[in-house]
């Protein structure tokens, strides 16, 4: 256990080196949030409600997406597939630790740094929106949402890990992260609230695991979800988590048998 603690500390200090980059990413997110706010402000100039949303609820949705994303976002598929492809993973295979555990620790280190920079900024943005647009943000459900984020984070991690292991068979590894982003934007609720989609499309959205990474925790944080729905969705989330955990293990054991690396 001690070796993992040492590794975690080293990942944390490495991620702190890039706090300038993290701060710039925060600005990028804030520009994106402003863009969505402008659009919805215009929508609500001529409409009282859209679907089940009034202006306050829609703004809180777009505000909560990056906050929840601060907890549930994972970027394993942006670097692990390349490591597998280039053979750089060989060095990790020789060391006495699990690949999935060190990736989890690495992501956790990045996350802590991200959250230290992000959370105060979003807290400020929340206060700004509350006063400027005269909207009421309910923070009472946030602790419950943060508890669910633990499982959403693990689901995203094991999904991303399974995706990354495809690099044992596929050449164009750079596209993995992008394809996942596209899926999260549409089916995860990153681009729009999924409950604005017409009923006939919703079945497809409900069948896929992506909504449990962003949309579900955001809806829990917003409040108003019936208890039975909350529990049943959590059960589905946990089922997906177990599925991707097993899938990842299977892909790893199959892939590592196929893997070969050489050097001079």
């Amino acid at each position: 256990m001690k070796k993992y603690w040492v590794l975690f500390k080293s990942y944390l200090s490495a991620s702190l080196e890039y706090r300038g980059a993290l701060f710039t990413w925060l600005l990028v997110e804030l520009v994106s949030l402003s863009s969505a706010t402008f659009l919805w402000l215009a929508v609500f100039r001529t409409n009282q409600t859209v679907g089940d949303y009034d202006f306050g609820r829609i703004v809180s949705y777009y505000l909560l997406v990056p906050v929840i994303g601060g907890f549930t976002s994972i970027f394993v598929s942006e670097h692990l597939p390349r490591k597998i492809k280039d053979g750089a993973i060989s060095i990790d295979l020789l060391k006495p630790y699990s690949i999935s555990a060190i990736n989890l620790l690495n992501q956790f280190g990045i996350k802590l740094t991200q959250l230290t920079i992000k959370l105060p900024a979003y807290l400020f943005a929340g206060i700004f929106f509350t006063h400027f647009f005269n909207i009421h943000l309910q923070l009472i459900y946030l602790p419950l949402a943060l508890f669910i984020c633990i499982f959403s984070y693990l689901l995203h991690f094991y999904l991303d890990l399974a995706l990354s292991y495809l690099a044992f068979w596929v050449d164009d590894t750079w596209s993995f992260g992008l394809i996942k982003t596209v899926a999260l934007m549409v089916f995860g609720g990153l681009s729009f609230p999924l409950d604005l989609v017409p009923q006939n499309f919703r079945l497809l959205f409900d069948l896929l695991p992506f909504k449990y990474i962003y949309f579900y925790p955001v809806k829990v944080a917003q409040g108003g979800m019936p208890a039975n729905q909350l529990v049943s969705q959590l059960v589905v989330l946990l089922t997906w988590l177990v599925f991707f955990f097993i899938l990842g293990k299977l892909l790893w054991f199959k892939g590592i048998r196929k893997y070969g690396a050489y050097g001079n």
Partner: protein
Amino acid sequence: MATKLRKYLKLYLKLAKFSASLEMEYRFSFILEVFVEVAFFFVTLFGMRVVYWNVSEIAGWHFNELLVLLGVNMVFTELVLGFVFIYNLRELPFKIAKGDLDMILLKPINSQFSVSLWRPYFALFPSALAGIVVAVVGFTRGGFAFNPIMFLPFLLIFSCGLVIAYSIGMLISTLSMWFINATPLPMLAQQLLFVARNPYSVFSGAWRIIFLTFLPIAFMASFPASTLLGKLELWWLPASVALAVVFLWGSNVFWKFALKKYSGASS
């Protein structure tokens, strides 16, 4: 001046040819890149469709008009990303941090040209076709009358918009001379291109002035699309030219100023 322009045009054509042959070496990768780009575009389109499933118009724009706007914005964005951002401005913070900029400064070529236009990224250009298709679909579905005369002012505003977008990208990316670890700075500039896909009329109050003057994203998609839809306002023409000149000049002045502060990072 004309000789210099010819020299750079010749150089650019050679660089473009070289870049194209490099990308074509990995054909499947090229096709996948096109697919990913088009997928991102359709995600945006679907996102807007979701909003329009619930409302009939946004700030005076109906869905078919918005299709024209999104189509124009797609072509615009792909051109700017392909020519300026992907292999050029996005690399600038890394070149500065690693000291690779030293090598660029030693070459007898304009350094701003080298860092911002050296290598085009062709995979984005086929996906611009998707933008044209969507704009045409919007035009047809909406039953808008296409006036060929409007194409000339459209081209002028659209081209000036490209120059403005290039200059803003250059201005923001140049800040990496001071913020060494802020590698996503060009992404911040890129994000503005995505804000530009909103109709200009969604902005209100002081934002209308900001997006018309200091960050003139109105000229990047909204005004060109409105021109195609027959809603041209004559003042857009001189304003777009003036802003393009001012921003291009400003980006050059700022780049030269930043170079004076640059001390090199290589050993």
